């Protein structure tokens, strides 16, 4: 199903935006409607934008090592608004953090080297799981 809305976001102080922009274009070319928040967002501003824009999923780009603090905070901020929007993380996430991120409610983690196809498949999987639940 094309046209689903995805919010891609940079949370915190990490200014590395190559990945988020490339992924935004990959998703747009795959038929998704993509909204990019820009830099230096907080968990609260991301959650607010996601709810306001009525998106189907949130993708966080995180390359500075703050994912263990900020990604769960985004999940919390979304839930505290009574919304149920899946949150995915893309970026530099060591294997040893995966379990804890899943436990914190992160729906998918895409790490360096992911191809466009893998990204689209994973986003699709998360959206379909959401529809099924």
């Amino acid at each position, binding site marked *: 199903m094309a046209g689903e809305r995805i919010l891609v976001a940079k949370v915190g*102080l990490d200014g590395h935006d*190559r990945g988020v922009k490339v992924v935004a274009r990959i998703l747009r070319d795959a038929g998704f409607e993509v909204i990019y928040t820009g830099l230096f967002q907080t968990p609260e501003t991301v959650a607010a934008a996601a709810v306001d824009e009525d998106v189907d999923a949130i993708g966080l780009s995180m390359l500075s090592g703050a994912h263990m603090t900020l990604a769960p905070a985004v999940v919390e901020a979304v839930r505290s608004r009574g919304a149920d929007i899946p949150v995915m993380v893309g970026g530099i996430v060591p294997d040893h953090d995966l379990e804890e991120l899943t436990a914190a409610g992160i729906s998918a983690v895409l790490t360096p080297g992911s191809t466009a196809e893998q990204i689209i498949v994973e986003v699709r999987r998360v959206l379909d799981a959401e529809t099924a639940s």
Partner: protein
Amino acid sequence: MPTPREIWEAEFGAAPRRDADFETMSGIPVEPVYGPEDGEFPGQFPYTRGPYASMYRSRLWTMRMFAGFGTAEDTNWRFKEIIRAGGGGLSTAFDMPTLLGIDSDDPMALGEVGRCGVAVDTLADMEDLYADIDLGEVTTSMTINSPAAVIFAMFVAQAEKAGIPRARLGGTLQNDILKEYQAQKEFVFPPRQSMRLVRDTIAFTSAEMPRWHSVSISGYHIREAGSTAVEELAFTLANGFAYVELALAAGLPVDSFAPRLSFFFNAHIDFFEEIAKYRAARRIWARWMRDRYGAEDPRSMQCRFHTQTAGVSLAAQQPELNIARTAIEALAGVLGGTQSLHTNSMDEAMALPTEKAARIALRTQQIIANETNVAHVADPLGGSHYVEALTDEVERQAEEIFAHIEELGSGSMLEGAIKGIEENWFQGRITDSAFELERKVNEGRRIIVGVNAFTEGNEEEQIPLLRITNEDEQRQRKRLDAVRDRRDQTTVDAVLERLRIEAADPEINLMPTLIEASQAYATLGEIMSAMGSVFGRHVEVPTF
């Protein structure tokens, strides 16, 4: 009339010689440079073949390893380890809050303190960071941009407190704000206000710190953000021209500051294109400095640069392969005549490096320096049909980009750089190039071993990674609390108030007051807020 070779011989003869046997492993004697009698020699305008006549025969490049994590004490320990292991210079990585000029106890700093580098909030951190390191001997590089003037003020205050006068300090402040808006995106104030701080640091160092490099004009981050090699070269040199025009507009004579401008380039994996890029960089800088900006001192025309291997070329899959990539990239930097070099560690696609991974990266440089004999000859690829043609073509394409930037600025490179940022021109081109490369990788037209080909072995056990815990964040906050408790608040308030008044007057150089604020143990965040209340903040329009 002496020939170019005779001129070179005289200069080479006067230069110091390092202690090594300049011969091949078979015992064939090796000349310091090869080329026709009337050709261009190293140390000769336009310096395509190197800024100095003797290059690595006098002194090898500086093995400058970038390090920083956790608190100042942690990083001080790593610095001493680097010096013990034979690293010749220090290079300081600051954490994200420091790079953005906020304190470790700011709510926005949550989760970022000490992660990507060392946390510096006050002069007290700076004192611990360089404790027991003789800053009159070791040169220091600091990778900091938006708050560069403040961190530099803290550095000067710290050194003087340790008894080293500012005139003796040697090193480099990155201080290249233009590429922050274009690529690295750690900006705080709007471009024009930030450029005022750059002007203040250039004026301050040219007057008081003859051994200090005021700006390290950096293509590294432009490339990492996704540009091509040509864009990296052209955007970087264009930014360099902008800083030159900024200092000229402030009334500084070109030869009073230009010798202290240096460059920082990426070493990516396309071996010959990288070498051509370095050669073209020297040639373009020399021509523009002499012909457009009227430089007369050869040092103003000599493009001297630091090189770092490409972080983006590292793969998370089969990370040991990154050692090979880094070695090839480092070799390109050396054959291209770099003055200093940082080699990335194999684990940096996943985390900050472990001590062992960082040591292997340094050892890679030591192999190039000591085992390969490549440092015997200056510009060993000069005269290669391929490398010469590539150098010419890279230069030609860069000149096309300069023409566009000049047009954006109606004849001013300074105005063109700022307009290009405000109109998202640089940012758009970089994203286009990043996406184009990604497309080639996805289509398999560009092979990355272990990523889109030769993936057998990807499932093997991973190498150990450095883990930074939240304890560092807690410790740093406690350190900051302690400083706030023991300083004299009245002095802090007074100096911050004076800073606000001076910031509003663009004629005033802020460096002396920034040093005073550091000495009063005002925090980085307080100082940046004081200036921010006058300067405002930069907000980028999000595009992709």
